[in-house]
């Protein structure tokens, strides 16, 4: 937080100076700030990883079961590399699922957890931890150093990708925005915030998707892709998209395919 304040001050001061002299190289300053924050030893996202590890093994719910029999696509209880291949098709549900949908499925069917409570706490807040954010941080971390490689082989996976692509370009609501409004060109910004180009495979998509879940300094919480997309639609002035809905998974699949071959390093830390 202190670093953040210092940076905010230096930007303010910088802007003041720039009026008199010349513009500071803002992008360089921001890059320095990002580097200061990304030290893994000081990333609070690893607290979520630790909590997630406990939650994974803990016997809970009406069935007094842990999640250790949960199949995330690589076999029951197999965590290494599972996140790198999601979202994917699961024969037992007949659906393409992302990590959060799959976890919700296991929590409900194998543990008998109170899903209303899980969903109420889907996004952590001061004084309220989120089991989902903790578990996602823990499981995604088990794919750190690996590369995104969703199978995209089953017809339902191909259908989900096509739906995700349509949603990416779907303009709607109060401001006529789609994902593509901000993320279909190279090197653009909103205010000073750089915008990754996500409609084509390559480094932008790899850097973006490879760094989610992430600890958001501005929110003091570790956030998942479900939250990222929820917040995008909020900023687009759309109605609130339903958590764990099929469309969000389709969009995620579209995005991880653009990020294919990109290395996963999570949880990361971001503004």
């Amino acid at each position: 937080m202190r670093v953040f304040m210092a940076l905010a001050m230096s930007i303010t001061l910088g802007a003041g100076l720039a009026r008199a002299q010349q513009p500071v190289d803002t992008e360089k300053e921001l890059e320095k700030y990002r580097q200061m924050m990304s030290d893994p030893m000081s990333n609070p996202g690893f607290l979520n990883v630790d909590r997630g590890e406990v939650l994974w093994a803990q016997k809970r719910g009406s069935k007094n079961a842990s999640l250790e029999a949960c199949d995330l696509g690589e076999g029951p209880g197999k965590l290494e590399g599972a996140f790198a291949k999601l979202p994917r098709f699961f024969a037992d549900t007949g659906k393409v699922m992302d990590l959060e949908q799959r976890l919700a499925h296991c929590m409900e069917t194998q543990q008998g957890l109170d899903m209303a409570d899980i969903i109420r706490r889907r996004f952590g807040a001061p004084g309220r931890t989120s089991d989902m954010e903790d578990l996602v941080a823990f499981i995604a971390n088990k794919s750190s150093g690996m590369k995104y490689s969703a199978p995209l082989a089953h017809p339902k996976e191909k259908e989900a990708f096509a739906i995700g692509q349509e949603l990416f370009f779907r303009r709607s609501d109060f401001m006529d925005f789609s994902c593509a409004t901000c993320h279909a060109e190279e090197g653009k910004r909103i205010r000073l915030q750089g915008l990754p180009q996500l409609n084509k495979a390559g480094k932008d998509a790899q850097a973006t998707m490879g760094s989610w879940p992430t600890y958001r300094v501005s929110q003091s919480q570790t956030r998942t892709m479900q939250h990222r997309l929820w917040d995008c639609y909020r900023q687009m002035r759309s109605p609130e998209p339903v958590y764990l809905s099929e469309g969000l998974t389709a969009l995620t699949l579209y995005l991880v395919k653009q990020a294919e071959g990109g290395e996963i390093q999570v949880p990361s830390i971001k503004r």
Partner: protein
Amino acid sequence: MKTLSISALLLAGLCILGPARAQDAPKPDAKRLEEVTKAMWPKTPEGWEKRISYDETQAVCSQFRNDLPQAEFDKVRARELATIKLPADGKVMGDWKAGQRFANDGRGGTFTDRPMTNGANCYACHQMDRFELSYGTLGPSLVNYGKDRKYAAEEAKAAYAKIYNSMAVMPCSTMPRFGYHGFLTEQQMKDLTAFLFDPESPVNK
């Protein structure tokens, strides 16, 4: 929320479009897509009943990835032009200082906002006052906008109309249709026009 029959629109779009572009995956089944979007947003939030959720222009811009064939382009432009309501008093210039405030304000209109006067958030995408360093680059720079147009009354009127409905000028423009959607009030659009066209405005300094 006003919603057209999405499947009808999509089907119409698919017939016009023919084969998908090379870099695109095959189009999904239109009915499935409608099902999926319906499940993402199953009900209209309270107080949002008058908001447009998906209109004909949005549908065709989505379908063609904002790159319309000429016939569609002309159709959209004519349709959007017909929605523009210029101020009844004939004046498009308001208070540039108020316009400056709205241009810098990005609040309002989200599902976590209380009802409030919406900011126009121009700086999210445009450079305006050259001394404001925090500006986005999705839209063109508007530095010297009025000066470059010799402060002509007709140009100011055109700017008001463009803020009201950008797609009447450029179908499938990235810029929101602020007046058409009722996102900004008439007074706000006048103030923003003044921010662009008043010789005293920092945009022209």
